[in-house]
């Protein structure tokens, strides 16, 4: 693309960002296969865990963290740069008074407990051909929109 004149300056990072979109897509495909073949998108598996009838989901979380915790720490400690060229840094989430995590997490948990679905599995179930899922995703978009609208009035 050298020599193409553009109105806005195209930084190397912006160019890398577009070039790497297929990599994010492939990562998503892998994640979708993991969610379905690993049964994390299964209503039955989620109910089994939330009703304390089996350890599967807890073992998945524990082993995922056993892999991710040391890898995340190594990437940040060694100041590794991503393929896009930026240093890998995970921004800390602001704790504040912490209320958004308790209330928001609690509201999400109520939805998760009855539907057995969280956002990742919702997209996986869409691909798996569960035909009411588009309605559930639209409802989730409505929920997010209403939160955005009410945000200035809610405790955080």
């Amino acid at each position: 693309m050298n020599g193409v004149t553009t109105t806005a300056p195209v930084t190397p990072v912006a160019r890398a960002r577009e070039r790497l979109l297929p990599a994010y897509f492939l990562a998503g495909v892998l994640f979708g296969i993991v969610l379905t073949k690993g049964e994390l998108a299964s209503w039955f598996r989620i109910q089994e865990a939330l009703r304390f009838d089996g350890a599967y989901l807890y073992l998945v979380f524990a082993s995922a963290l056993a892999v991710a915790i040391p890898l995340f720490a190594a990437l940040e400690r060694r100041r590794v740069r991503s393929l896009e060229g930026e240093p890998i840094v995970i921004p800390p989430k602001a704790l504040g008074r912490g209320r958004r995590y308790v209330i928001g997490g609690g509201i999400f948990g109520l939805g998760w407990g009855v539907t057995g679905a969280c956002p990742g599995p919702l997209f996986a179930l869409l691909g798996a051909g569960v035909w009411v899922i588009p309605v559930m995703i639209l409802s989730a978009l409505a929920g997010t929109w209403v939160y955005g609208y009410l945000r200035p009035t809610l405790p955080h």
Partner: protein
Amino acid sequence: MPDLLYRPWPWYVTGPLVGLVATGLLVIGNKQLGVSSNFRHLCAAAWPRNVSFFKYDWTRSGLWNLVFAGGIVVGGFIGGVLLASPDSVAITARAHADLARLGVHDFTGLVPGQLFHWGALLTLKGWLLIVGGGFLIGFGTAYAGGCTSGHGITGLADLQLPSLIAVVAFFAAGALASHFLLPLLLTG
């Protein structure tokens, strides 16, 4: 050998792969695994109105994640249709008995067909489950700033206290909902 392709994966394959996907996104472009942000990006793209929460450049901060979510849909087709296991999900006998007691009789597929079908939208309970449940997921994850992936994997893997609080809150509320709300929606 072909049978191996269709068999569900054990936890010690699934869990580490989840950890590797989260790590892979960091390596590709310093991106944090988190799916619920896509609801916000879609709102910002489709109908931001004058809401400050949706007034940002979603193409800059969210395009990669929407592409990632598109990949999840394709992966869900591969894992949930092309490579679908012919057997019911192998939950414990205790879970099976527990859910049967609540009135679940169809254990095939990823979700129970008796709850997740178009006809359910014509009943009050089905509507509460699908539309009400979906609304709570979208509202709660936006409020908490993350979900099972963003807080449960990325935040916990980075040892962040806010994520631990969110994870404890959604597991506690999820257990409450499964024990006390779900029976109301399943029976009668």
